[in-house]
């Protein structure tokens, strides 16, 4: 990585940092509004996901990362989805009279 690239990277980091800060305050602000539980959850999680993506893509260099790491993460994501979703589905599909 040349010095020029690096300083470009640093600019990006600072932008991301500012973005993260803004989003933090947005999510706190939104939670103080009375938006209803479902909307509240969706907004909060959307913001968190955005922030997470920013951190992963830039701070963790995921944008430049190699194929092998993407494969690993896709793999993990699939199992994670199963882990998150299925217990809940199972709970909803219990034996009931």
């Amino acid at each position: 990585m040349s010095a020029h690239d690096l300083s470009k990277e640093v600019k990006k980091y600072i932008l991301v940092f500012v973005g993260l800060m803004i989003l933090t305050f947005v999510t706190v602000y939104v939670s103080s509004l009375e938006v209803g539980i479902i909307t509240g959850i969706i907004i909060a999680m959307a913001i968190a996901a955005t922030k997470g993506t920013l951190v992963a893509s830039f701070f963790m260099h995921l944008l430049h990362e190699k194929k092998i790491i993407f494969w690993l993460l896709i793999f993990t994501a699939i199992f994670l989805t199963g882990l998150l979703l299925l217990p809940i589905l199972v709970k909803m599909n219990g034996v009931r009279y």
Partner: protein
Amino acid sequence: MQIPFTVENREDTAVYNGKLGIWLFLASEVMLFGALFSSYIFLRVGSTNWPDGSSILNIPMATFNTVVLITSSITMVMSWVGLMEKNYKKFSLYMFSTILLGTIFLVVKYFEYTAKFEHHLFPSTNTFLAIYYTLTGLHVIHILGGLIVNGYHLLFGKKMWETEPQRFTNRIEVSGLYWHFVDLVWIFLFPLLYLL
């Protein structure tokens, strides 16, 4: 025979060992926190009287902590930039700030916990507090781990930097990945526990 690819990338995979290793470790961490998030949702969906996190927990403190942790993430990445620029001093400075910010996070957490205890809010009080303590507690342990590793780099890194600069830079990159992940976990914990 030396173990290959500790420093340079392997051609066909284009990564060095440490980087693949840390990403694998993070994948398992994702599953660990994923399981805990899943438990949280499971318990919450099944509960009839889930308390409102914001009425029990201290949002300003947690917001402050979020800011602290995000800032520590950028100082962490800047310390790596320092090494990339062959500027050890810059590295030390930013690494020191990272550790400082991490410590501040822990101190704030400490006050949060003691405030809860004073109000007799314990893990056994209700399931919300139980999951709050467990998730944040586990997160605190992760922060502690990160601080120890980063502290080691700061105090004892010089020697490796002088003999094997590339390897040292890699180490900082790897530690950074871990640190950002801990930050990322907090980014989800914060709304989940405090705001919803």
